[in-house]
């Protein structure tokens, strides 16, 4: 064993390197406050490991990216945990970065000769943020797609080179395959490689100069660290207080308890008449291994614990597949960009120059100030300027972030959009499960051929200017997407069309002539209403007729009662032919009868409705009596002219299937 080791050592020097790495002296002893660099190294390592495994399952193209992430999230064994760890570690990494930066600035670890290390650190901060930004797009879901679109549009406002820059970044004039391949290459290749190289330099320089030991000269100096910590945590608590109404209670309690804890500690140190242990210097030096690593390990373990907590408690979101034709207004960047996002809404940043100012100049100045810190901090007063500057920056960041979330939480339109997006994400999962897989064209095609998704949209844009689809509690007609109609409906309510209930209403005078049905059409003066007034149908007649007519629709929702009430249905058909009612004088029933009114053969069946919507002026339906109903499919008029339809066959079928309730449902 020993022989093998020295053989290896002679050839690689690995033992010496390990010793060198581990047996570094820590002047003044190991400390908890030195752990942040190690936690970051750990977090990056976790990202590399999980990232490589995710890479093995991910497929970057506009028609497979969402699909492969869906597969990772929902079907791959342990895939959701893998993706969850990657996602949540990225979130926590941003917090760790800030803590590391605060630690470095408070301890003035940027002072000569450590300036370069500080600058490399700031560059790494920006690389990490760029990695997050590029990673956000990769699932190619609605949220990532629209949020990243905003970010790349901002690249477009860079003076002079903006347009070209944007084109290069997204790989063309518009989002597509090449946006994903480019972002993926950046996210998994270029940026991590740069990060590894810089971490190497960062750690090399850190070892070269050693830990910056705080050397307090006075008692207050020794407590200085705790005072700054108190200010920081109290600031967080205040921010949390502003946010108290729109969030779980821990958001308020965690920073408040932290601040209280720090204050108690300060009071305790004062009462004891001693300073904290930093005043008991010179203390015996510690060793990196195991004194510091022990602390590092415990905090890294806590970081992992926090990540897993979020993975299991919050899960990892995948919104519905990116759809360039369906803007998602509730798209937001990751939380650490929310402050910038909100800033752009300020009046100061209005207009073309305002956008350049807010998106480029102000962030540019702020980051230059970060870079300048080692130079500003040359003198003691400069150090204080830096500390205050950093606290103001972080304070501004926290306040803006809180404001941004608060604004969203109190915006009903935003909440409605988010809920709709969740519904759609659930719907696409349902469709994939039902289909037992995703079609080669991608998951979006499932949504596009889903009546439940498309029906209300098509109805709202094509039908709702005349027809209603149900009513809200206040009796206002709705447009199919649960929005109120802007105008009064002028044509029948189509909710439940073809059902017994709906047909019963059509056969009742007070409904037929009301706003809900034909009250605002020419048919108010028509023969049918005249007939209904003259005949005074009994309730029993209406029930039988409605059952018979409704059975022609062959609605899925009524198949049970249609099969049960055979006698009632048969009676209904018989009455239609009898002299007393004589429906067949005007209407065709089961293929026989008059031609004055619409053909009731296969009334409200799928094909009947498609044909009717296609061209209700056809002699089979209203003929010349048609009021304002346009032909939605191409039709030939009696003069032989071709009248172009407003919709295609598929769209009409989607509307019909939705109206009839013919779609996949749980």
């Amino acid at each position, binding site marked *: 064993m020993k022989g093998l080791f020295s053989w290896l050592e002679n050839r690689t020097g690995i033992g010496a390197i*390990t010793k060198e*790495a*581990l*047996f570094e002296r820590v002047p003044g002893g190991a400390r908890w406050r030195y752990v942040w660099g*190690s936690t970051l*190294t*750990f977090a990056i*390592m*976790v990202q590399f*490991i*999980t990232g*490589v*495994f995710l890479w*093995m*399952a991910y497929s970057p193209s506009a028609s*497979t990216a969402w*699909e*492969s992430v*869906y*597969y*990772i999230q929902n*079907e*791959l*064994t*342990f*895939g959701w*945990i*893998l993706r969850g*760890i990657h996602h949540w570690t990225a979130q926590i990494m941003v917090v760790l970065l800030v803590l590391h930066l605060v630690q470095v600035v408070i301890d003035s670890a940027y002072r000569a000769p450590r300036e370069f290390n500080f600058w490399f650190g700031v560059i790494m901060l920006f690389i990490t943020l760029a990695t997050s930004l590029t990673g956000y797009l990769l699932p190619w879901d609605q949220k990532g797609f629209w949020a990243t679109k905003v970010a790349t549009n901002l690249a477009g406002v860079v003076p002079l080179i903006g347009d070209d820059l944007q084109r290069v970044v997204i790989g063309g004039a518009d989002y597509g395959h090449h946006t994903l391949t480019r972002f993926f290459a950046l996210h998994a290749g270029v940026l991590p490689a740069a990060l590894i190289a810089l971490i190497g330099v960062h*750690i090399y320089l850190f070892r070269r100069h050693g830990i910056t030991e705080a050397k307090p000269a006075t008692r207050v100096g020794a407590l200085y660290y705790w005072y700054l910590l108190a200010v920081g945590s109290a600031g967080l608590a205040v921010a949390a207080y502003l946010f108290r109404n729109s969030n779980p209670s821990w958001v308020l309690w965690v920073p408040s308890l932290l601040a209280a804890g720090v204050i108690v500690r300060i009071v305790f140190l004062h009462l004891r008449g001693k300073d904290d242990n930093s005043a008991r210097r010179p203390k015996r030096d510690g*060793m990196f*291994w*195991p*004194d510091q*690593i*022990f602390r*590092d*390990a*415990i905090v*890294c*373990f806590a970081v*992992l614990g926090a990540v*897993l907590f979020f993975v299991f408690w919050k899960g990892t979101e995948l919104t519905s597949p990116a759809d360039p034709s369906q803007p998602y207004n509730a798209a937001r960047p990751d939380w650490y960009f929310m402050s910038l996002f909100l800033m752009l809404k300020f009046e100061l940043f209005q207009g073309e120059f305002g956008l350049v100012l807010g998106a480029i100049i102000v962030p540019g100045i702020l980051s230059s100030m970060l870079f300048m810190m080692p130079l500003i901090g040359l003198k003691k007063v400069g150090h204080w300027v830096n500390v205050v500057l950093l606290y103001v920056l972080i304070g501004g960041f926290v306040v803006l972030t809180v404001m941004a979330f608060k604004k969203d939480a109190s915006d009903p339109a935003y909440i409605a959009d988010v809920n709709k997006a969740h519904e759609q994400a659930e719907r696409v999962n349902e469709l994939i499960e039902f*289909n*037992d*897989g*995703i*079609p*080669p064209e991608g998951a979006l095609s499932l949504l596009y051929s889903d009546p439940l998704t498309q029906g209300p949209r098509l109805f709202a844009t094509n039908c709702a200017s005349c027809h209603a689809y149900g009513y809200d509690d206040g009796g206002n007609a709705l447009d199919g997407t649960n929005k109120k109609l802007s105008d009064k409906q002028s044509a029948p309510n189509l909710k439940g069309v073809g059902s017994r209930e709906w047909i019963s209403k059509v056969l009742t005078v007070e409904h037929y002539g009301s706003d809900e049905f034909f009250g605002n059409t020419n048919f108010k003066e028509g023969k049918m209403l005249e007939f209904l007034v003259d005949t005074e149908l009994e309730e029993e007649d209406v029930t039988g007729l409605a059952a018979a007519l409704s059975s022609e629709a062959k609605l899925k929702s009524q198949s049970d009662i249609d099969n049960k009430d055979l006698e009632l249905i048969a009676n209904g058909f018989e009455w239609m032919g009898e002299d007393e009612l004589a429906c067949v004088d005007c209407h065709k029933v089961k293929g026989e009868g008059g031609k004055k009114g619409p053909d009731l053969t296969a009334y409200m069946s799928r094909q009947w409705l498609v044909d009717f919507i296609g061209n209700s002026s056809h002699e089979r339906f209203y003929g010349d009596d048609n009021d304002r109903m346009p032909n939605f499919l191409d039709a030939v008029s009696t003069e032989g002219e071709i009248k172009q339809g407003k919709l295609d066959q598929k769209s009409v079928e989607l509307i019909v299937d939705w109206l009839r309730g013919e779609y996949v449902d749980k």
Partner: protein
Amino acid sequence: MNESLSSEPIEPDDPERRQFLEKTVSIVLGGAMVSVPVGAGIATLLAPLSSDKGGSLKVRLASIEDLPSDGTPKLYQVVAEKKDAWTKYPNKPIGSVFLRRIDESKVVAFNSSCPHAGCSVDIDSDGSAFFCPCHASSFDFDGITQGKSVSPRGLDELEVDPDLLDKGEVWVTFVKFKAGVADKVEV
């Protein structure tokens, strides 16, 4: 940074109990936290091991009149619904089958994939035998290796449904077999 690297550190001057405790805790926690992301990753990596086999699929390939009565084999493509990870292809070619009519009541079916290395077997130029262009294996029309063939076994015969054959329809149970071994092993 990597605590698990050195499991036997030699601390020159301070073999205290505290340090021993610190080392133990560091190594245990270090191992635990590395194993979480690695473990989740390995689990996804090895997921294909627990996925189902390709399975068999019964397909109609021809009616008996389509096949030459002189016993010359004819190649048919097997098209089926296929799932590839997340994608479901409605009609995807998944392989092909040689059908050979022996007489009115007997049809033989061979998977056209060569049992040697999985190349696609053809009929040789003079039309007298099956021939694999990759490594020159040759099989007679009964599927048995002939000449200096490198294939470890003859062509894989597939099951033809006898009842449906009586009605003139050729239905074959399509199965894929492992290449390169002497026994017929389903994959």
